[in-house]
């Protein structure tokens, strides 16, 4: 009864090569969608500009004496906060996308199961890149001249984009299991707000009460922010750099499989 009459090479598994190819095609789809609706880039364009201006001029004098001395502290902090916040949009959009009929077709195609998710997340790195470039540009306009020079700024930018991509798997997971797009936004903001503010992004940790210092030092975002500061200000690739990358890898190792599984379960 096996369909020997069909002249096709049939395989019941997809290799790594196919998974990468399929994901890149899906990323291409994501980029086409962004190109068709550029207004969805509003948030990544405006947020870095407004936040950088606002926080620098509000806190600069109080924390570092003047704005210029505050820039090496605040720019890496704002950078991480902005780019990580941008990654929430990935989960929200995935939720909206999955409600559309086209995801049925993706499921019925003989492609790697991870591709529709990985592709969407990959396409969103364009958003992180825009936010990163704008934050550094704003800093430059305000007089920030990182000691590390352009080379270390690029390394720091790539580190932040890679970590944001990893963290976006968490929001993708929320996106897959949540019922509505707005609930994804809600849950994600709730999780991120304390993480970005209870960190070393805006103020020196030693000004905080002991119990808070304990949390802030544990906070993975503090490690990422420190890694970025080390790179751009001191040209150091230190332990925080390694911790950030390991953390990113752990997040992907946990959340990518459970997200794909939850995605497959959805009807």
């Amino acid at each position, binding site marked *: *009864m*096996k*369909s020997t*009459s*069909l*002249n*096709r090479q*049939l*395989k*019941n*598994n*997809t290799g790594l090569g*196919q998974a990468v190819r*399929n994901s890149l*095609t*899906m990323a*291409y*789809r994501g980029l*086409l*969608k962004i190109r*068709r*609706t550029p207004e969805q880039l509003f948030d990544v364009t405006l947020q870095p500009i407004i936040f950088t201006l606002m926080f620098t001029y509000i806190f600069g004098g109080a924390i570092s004496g003047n704005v210029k001395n505050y820039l090496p502290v605040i720019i890496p902090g704002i950078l991480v906060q902005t780019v990580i916040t941008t990654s929430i949009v990935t989960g929200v959009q995935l939720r909206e996308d999955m409600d*559309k*009929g*086209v*995801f*049925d*077709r*993706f*499921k*019925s*195609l*003989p*492609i790697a199961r991870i*591709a529709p998710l990985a592709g969407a997340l990959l396409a969103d790195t364009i958003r992180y890149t825009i936010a990163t470039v704008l934050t550094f540009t704003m800093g430059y306009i305000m007089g920030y001249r990182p000691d590390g020079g352009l080379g270390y700024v690029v390394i720091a930018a790539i580190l932040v984009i890679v970590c944001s991509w990893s963290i976006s798997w968490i929001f993708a997971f929320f996106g897959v299991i949540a019922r509505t797009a707005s609930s994804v936004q809600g849950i994600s903001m709730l999780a991120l707000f304390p993480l970005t503010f209870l960190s070393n992004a805006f103020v020196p940790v030693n000004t905080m009460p002991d119990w808070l210092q304990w949390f802030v030092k544990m906070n993975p975002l503090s490690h990422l922010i420190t890694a970025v500061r080390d790179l751009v200000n001191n040209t150091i690739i230190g332990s925080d750099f390694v911790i950030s990358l390991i953390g990113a890898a752990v997040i992907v190792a946990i959340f990518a499989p459970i997200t794909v599984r939850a995605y497959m379960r959805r*009807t």
Partner: protein
Amino acid sequence: MIHRTIPNNGDWAVEARGLIKNFGENRAVNGVNLNVRAGTIYGLLGPNGAGKTTTIRMLATLLRPDAGSAHIFGHDVMKESQVVRQLIGVTGQYASVDESLSATENLVIFSRLLGLSRAESKRKAAELLEEFGLTEAAKRPLKNFSGGMRRRLDLAASLISQPPLIFLDEPTTGLDPRTRNQMWDTIRRLVSTGSTVLLTTQYLQEADELADRIAVIDRGIVVAEGTVDELKSSVGRSSLHLRIENSLDIGVARHTVERVLNVKSNVSSEGGKITAPMADADRVADLLIALREAGIHLAELSVQKPTLDEVFLTITGHGVNENASSAPYEMPEVEEIRG
């Protein structure tokens, strides 16, 4: 379509045994059995909520059955799902294409996902758009597409890899008659190139026009199966519609109809109208005499082609709208219509 390996006619394209799917408390599919011969059009006929879409989704690997088994060209949909996906094309009830992209971009992306090279994908997209009369709209975003164009694009997307089995879930629901006829022509052409088509529909006429065999599905179970002719003769060639003057007489009138014609009748929801299958036209004269003798005055009498409602009434003993309220199924009813 250019070239196609035609499966042996002896092969079963679809074999499903006792498929069951629950959504929470609700059993959407309750033991569906299906056999679809390769190279034919098979119609799954039933009202909204009968379990048609759920059945198709299980066969197309989009949904995991809770019990039962299904094979596509001999491949298990659960154990060899990735193989099955290489043999099928699915056109969903809601357009399964990307709204924000153009027709060409959609087809190119699906082609790339199916392993075609960049150049091949472009060629394939152009070829399909040409075939489905969408070339002029190729670059426009789908938002501006009419319902008919969207369905055609959807079908085109299902044909990229020239799959030997194509699932069409209500391919013409919501289309105007002209576009519907175009869609029917397209579906017929598909089968002439050797594909097998499994389609769902709410319309007997559509099944009539297209399908070689039909399964009538109701409340998650196949209640009748056969060729269009077999099904029709079980319903009667046409049905009798009677509207009586005095609605108080409806009980007597209905009783008379059932006695004289020896069939089950149905009273329409707006009241005062009795419908009954008419297997033997000669008996109508007897009925009219019997009604006059009983002193029942008719306001209107007409003979109509069987509707899905009547197919249902005859096969299941209840109308389409009564679904929720009537008693659960018993198998003998299925045997009854086959006998």
